[in-house]
C-alpha cells in the first residue's frame, strides 16, 4: 500500500501541492489525472522520494523520506516523462542499468524479455540517441520493467510509478503499454500512472485521483470521479461523456458543446 498523508510541496515561494492525502493499493492501476500545472507530476515525484515535502509518505510501511535508495530501488521503479541521455549508450546498456538496480539481475535473458514486452525485439545493439521519441520512451519503460520484473516477491508487491507513459506513443503502443500495466497489477503489483488521456483512464484505471490547483479534488473509482461536473470543474471546460456501447465503459470525445 502506497500511503501519502497530508503532503505539501513548496518550491521557492510557490506552493505546488497542499495537503494531499491519498492511497494506492497493489493489484490496481491508480491513475492521476488533472489539467496542466495541477500538481500531478509533483505528486508523483513526492511519492518517488525525489523532492522535499512536508507530511509523510510510506510504501508498505517503509518511510520514503528516510529509506535507503538501494532498498527502494528494489521495491519500485519510476518512469520519467522524457529521459535525454548524455552519452551514446545502446538500448541494451540502458535496459541493463534497470536490471542491475533490481532483484532479478541474475537472469541473463531479462533485458531481452523486457525489450520484447515493449515491442522492441532486436533493438538491443542500437544507439538510444538514434531512436524516435516514442521508441526512447518504450526503452525507458523496458528499463523500469527490468528493474521490478516480478510484480510480487514473497507476497510483497512491487510498484511502477509512470509519468505519462503513453504521451509520445501511437495508438497501438498506447494500448500495449496500458495492457502491460494492467498485467502487472493483475499479477499483484501496484501501478500509479499519470494520464492525460481520459479515455485511457476510463478504460484501464481501477482508481482515479483527480488533481486540481495543487489539491486532490476527487478520488475513487472511475465511475464516481469521471463525471461531467467533476471534469468540467477541474479542466475548466464543459464536457459531455457517454458510455461506450460495447463494454459500457466511460468515453469522452473532446469537442465544443
Amino acid at each position, binding site marked *: 500500500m502506497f500511503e501519502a498523508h497530508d503532503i505539501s510541496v513548496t518550491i521557492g515561494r510557490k506552493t505546488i501541492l497542499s495537503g494531499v492525502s491519498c492511497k494506492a493499493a497493489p493489484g490496481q492501476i491508480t491513475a492521476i489525472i488533472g489539467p496542466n500545472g495541477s500538481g500531478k507530476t509533483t505528486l508523483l515525484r513526492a511519492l518517488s522520494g525525489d523532492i522535499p515535502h512536508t507530511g509523510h509518505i510510506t510504501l508498505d510501511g517503509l518511510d520514503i523520506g528516510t529509506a535507503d*535508495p*538501494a532498498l527502494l530501488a528494489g521495491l519500485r521503479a519510476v518512469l520519467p516523462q522524457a529521459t535525454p541521455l548524455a552519452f551514446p549508450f545502446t538500448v541494451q546498456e540502458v535496459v541493463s542499468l534497470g536490471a542491475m538496480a533490481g532483484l532479478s539481475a541474475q537472469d541473463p535473458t531479462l533485458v531481452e524479455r523486457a525489450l520484447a514486452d515493449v515491442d522492441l525485439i532486436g533493438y538491443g*545493439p542500437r544507439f538510444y540517441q538514434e531512436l524516435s521519441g516514442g521508441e526512447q520512451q518504450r526503452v525507458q519503460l523496458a528499463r523500469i520493467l527490468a528493474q521490478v520484473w516480478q510484480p510480487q516477491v514473497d507476497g510483497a508487491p512491487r510498484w511502477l510509478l509512470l509519468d505519462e507513459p503513453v504521451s509520445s506513443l501511437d495508438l497501438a503502443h498506447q494500448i500495449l503499454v496500458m495492457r502491460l500495466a494492467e498485467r502487472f497489477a493483475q499479477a499483484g503489483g501496484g501501478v500509479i500512472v499519470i494520464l492525460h488521456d481520459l479515455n485511457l483512464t476510463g478504460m484501464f484505471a481501477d482508481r482515479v485521483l483527480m488533481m486540481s490547483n495543487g489539491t486532490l479534488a476527487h478520488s475513487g473509482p472511475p465511475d464516481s470521479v469521471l463525471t461531467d461536473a467533476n471534469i468540467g470543474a477541474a479542466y475548466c471546460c464543459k464536457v459531455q461523456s457517454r458510455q461506450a456501447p460495447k463494454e459500457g465503459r466511460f468515453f469522452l470525445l473532446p469537442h465544443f458543446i
Partner: protein
Amino acid sequence: MAADTAAALPIPKVRDRQSVARWMHLWLLLLLIVMSLLSLGYGAADASLFRAFTALMTGDAISQTEQIILLDIRLPRLLLGITVGAALAVSGVLMQGLFRNPLADPGIVGVSAGASLGAVTAIVLGPLLPAALLALMGGALIALFAFAGAWIAMLILYRVSTRQGRTSVATMLLAGIALAALTGAVSGLLIYIADDQQLRDFTFWSLGSLGGTSWAKVWIAAPIVLAAILLATRLAHGLNCLALGEAAALHLGIRTERLKSGAVLLTAAATGLAVAVSGGIGFIGIVVPHLLRLATGPDHRPLLINAALLGAALLVGADIISRTLVAPAELPIGIVTAVLGAPVFLWILLRRRGLVDL
C-alpha cells in the same frame, strides 16, 4: 602518436563493445609499456637504455653519468608523466560523467585555473605560515593548496551551472570562463605583491613541463593519484546511472549526493595534483575519454581504467616529443598536447557529430 593509435582502431559493432573494452585494457597497457621504454631510452643526453640493460646482464658497470640520467632524471620524469597523464584523463572522465556533458574538462572550465591559483597562493603566501608547519608540509604545500583551489572551483562551477540536477552546456562553459578570469586576476594580484625569490619559484612552476622532476614530486603525486583512480572506479556504476539524469539515478538506488561530492572531490584531487606538479597541460582530459567512448562505449567502468592508461601513454609520448624535437632545448609539453590533441578532437567531432550529441 598515442592518440593516432587509438583513433585508428575501427569502431566496433555495438554488440562487441564490452569485450573490446576489456581487450583494450591489455592493448593500452602494452602501449604504455612501449612508450615508457622509449621514454627511458631516448633523450638529449646519450644514455642508452639498451646499453644499461646489457650492462646489467653482463655484470659490467655503467658509467655514473648514465646511471644518474636513467635513475634520477628519466625514471622520475617518466613516472610523473604517467601519473599526470592518468590524473588528467581520469579527471576528464569524472567531470564529464558528473556534468553529464562530453565538453567538460578541467582545463576548459576553470578547474585547472583554480588549482593554479591555489599553487600561486602557496608560493606567495606560504612563507607567512608558521615555520614549523612549513617544515612539516615541505613540498606538499603547493599540492595541498592546488587541490583546495581545484575543489573550490569545482564546487562553485557545479553550484552555478547545475539547477535541479540539470547542467546547461552554455552556462557551464560561460561559468568556466568567468571562473578562469577571476582566478587569473587574483593570481595576477598575488604575483604583483610577490618578492624576487617567489617570482623565481612561480616562473619555474608555471613553465608547466615535466622537466626538473625530482623523486619528491613523484612520491607526493603518484600515491594520491593512484588512490583517486582506484576510488573513481567505485563510482563507475553510479556515473552510468547518472547519465540518465539525477532523479533516475536516485530511483535506480544510487545515493546521488554522495556520488556527486565523491566525483567533485576526486576530480579536484587528480586535477590539483596534476597542476601542482606539472602546471597546466591541456586536452588530455577531453580527447582521451572521447576517443575511448567512440571505441568502447560510455560505460564508465572500463572507461576509467582505459582513460588512465591511454592518458598516461599519451602524455609520456608527448613528453618524448617535447624533449627530442628541439633537443637539447625543450618544448613546453602543453604545446605538444594541444597540437596533437586539438586536431584529433575536431576530427572526431566532424566525423561522429550525431553520436556524441553536442
